[in-house]
């Protein structure tokens, strides 16, 4: 027997915790939306354009959520929005979460980060601040955000945080209006020594507005963009190696292959619980119900199985699919729906990596089996693949 404070590297302990959490279904990770409004007017946004002033969590409500998460064994909390730094009580909520012992991640557009916030985050560091970058030049950046000087302010924020050693990563959504600048943004991030990531799935607005879908890249555009960011798809291949084919364990009728409802959950500004922030369908409410009750409901949701004959149930590429149950749910209303756009992207990518002979999914040659829910006519008209 001995005492001690072993200095175990973060990743090691996190891997260990992850394994235990998976085995015992502990909600290790939570995404908490503390405000739905934003100081930007981004054209692709799924949440802020339809949010009202009162769509924010009060400090008291945030305390209730944090307390319940703490008791449930949550370790990491992502504070997200909307724009979190426009929340008048952001600092109080953040410090409350810190003092509860959560490892905190923050999503922000960084517009409000000046010297004072940078000093604050240096003193009370989060695990990572994830900053959205919306263009490589002031013109393109501000065309997307609709806010003058937003480019200049974001660049300054990145430098202020870098100078203070605050952990940070950069990200940019891949869309028709950003795709050509993504390689430049990635190179700029690399020149600063920062991790960069991008996501090509654009979601409809929370209250049903479909305008953002017009910005969705077609399968050909996604592949060409990924080839430019990752020549030869080297990184994608590395990821795919363990996730393609029967032996990977990802093939089968399980709908949710991610950690949602097993080790993670999301909570919206009204306490509503969903699988992740991409899903807007709540299964319960943490302001009104016990954690166990809501967690059970989420467990029920993610136990879903595809119906017999569903194309995804036997797909070799389920583990590397461009879509997921939450994005499919956003476009079809059901996590067990089917979106051919994602299927085409995935098969094209599989073809590029040498996993598929033609890059054309079965549903294109043989049709989508009847009874499978697909995007409604209005949604489908907005998606590039059906244009």
């Amino acid at each position: 027997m001995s005492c001690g404070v072993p200095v175990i590297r973060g990743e090691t302990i996190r891997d260990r915790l992850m394994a235990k959490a998976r085995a015992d279904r502990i909600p290790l990770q939570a995404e908490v939306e503390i405000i739905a409004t934003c100081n930007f007017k981004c054209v692709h946004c799924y949440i802020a354009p339809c949010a009202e002033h009162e769509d924010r969590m009060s400090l008291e409500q945030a305390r209730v959520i944090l307390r319940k998460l703490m008791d449930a064994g949550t370790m990491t909390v992502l504070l997200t929005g909307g724009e979190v730094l426009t929340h008048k009580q952001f600092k109080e909520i953040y410090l409350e979460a810190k003092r509860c012992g959560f490892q905190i991640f923050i999503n922000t557009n960084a517009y409000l980060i000046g010297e004072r916030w940078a000093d604050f985050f240096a003193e009370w560091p989060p695990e990572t601040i994830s900053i959205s970058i919306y263009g490589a030049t002031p013109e393109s950046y501000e065309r997307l955000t609709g806010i003058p000087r937003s480019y200049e302010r974001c660049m300054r924020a990145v430098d202020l945080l870098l100078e203070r050693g605050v952990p940070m990563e950069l990200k940019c959504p891949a869309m028709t209006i950003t795709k050509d600048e993504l390689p430049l943004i990635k190179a700029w991030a690399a020149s600063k020594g920062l991790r960069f990531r991008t996501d090509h799935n654009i979601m409809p607005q929370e209250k049903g507005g479909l305008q953002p879908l017009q910005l969705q890249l077609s399968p050909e555009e996604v592949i060409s963009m990924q080839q430019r960011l990752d020549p030869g798809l080297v990184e994608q291949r590395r990821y795919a190696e363990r996730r393609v084919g029967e032996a990977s364990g990802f093939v089968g009728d399980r709908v949710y292959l991610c950690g949602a409802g097993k080790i993670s959950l999301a909570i919206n500004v009204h306490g509503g619980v969903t699988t992740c922030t991409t899903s807007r369908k709540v299964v319960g409410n943490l302001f009104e119900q016990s954690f166990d009750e809501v967690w059970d409901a989420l467990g029920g949701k993610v136990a879903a199985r595809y119906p017999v004959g569903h194309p995804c149930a036997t797909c070799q590429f389920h583990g590397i699919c461009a879509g997921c149950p939450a994005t499919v749910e956003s476009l079809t209303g059901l996590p067990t729906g089917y979106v051919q756009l994602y299927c085409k992207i995935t098969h094209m990518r599989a073809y590029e990596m040498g996993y598929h002979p033609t890059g054309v999914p079965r549903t294109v040659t043989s049709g989508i089996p009847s009874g499978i829910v697909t995007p409604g006519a209005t949604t489908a008209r907005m998606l590039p693949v059906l244009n």
Partner: protein
Amino acid sequence: MATRFMRGDRHVYRNIAGEHLLIALHGDSPEPLFALTPTAAFLWEQLNDWCTQEELAAALSQRFDVTAEQAARDINDFLAQLDEVRALQTQESTP
């Protein structure tokens, strides 16, 4: 003069999935996260209030199957490590 110890407020203890963790609140910590052994977690709990090394040793040998000498040695090491990561407050007091 007796030296008394109490845990500082620059770290938070959490038990997550059976792991005893000491989480640093501030940016000047050498690591954001430390893992505690079960005995260290017990001592961290005792350090909720000011106590001497002897009191800690007595509590440890009462709770775990450990000799007084072993307990004293372990506690000495443990307190030094806590001090190194700035997780400990120290006070000299006259008995």
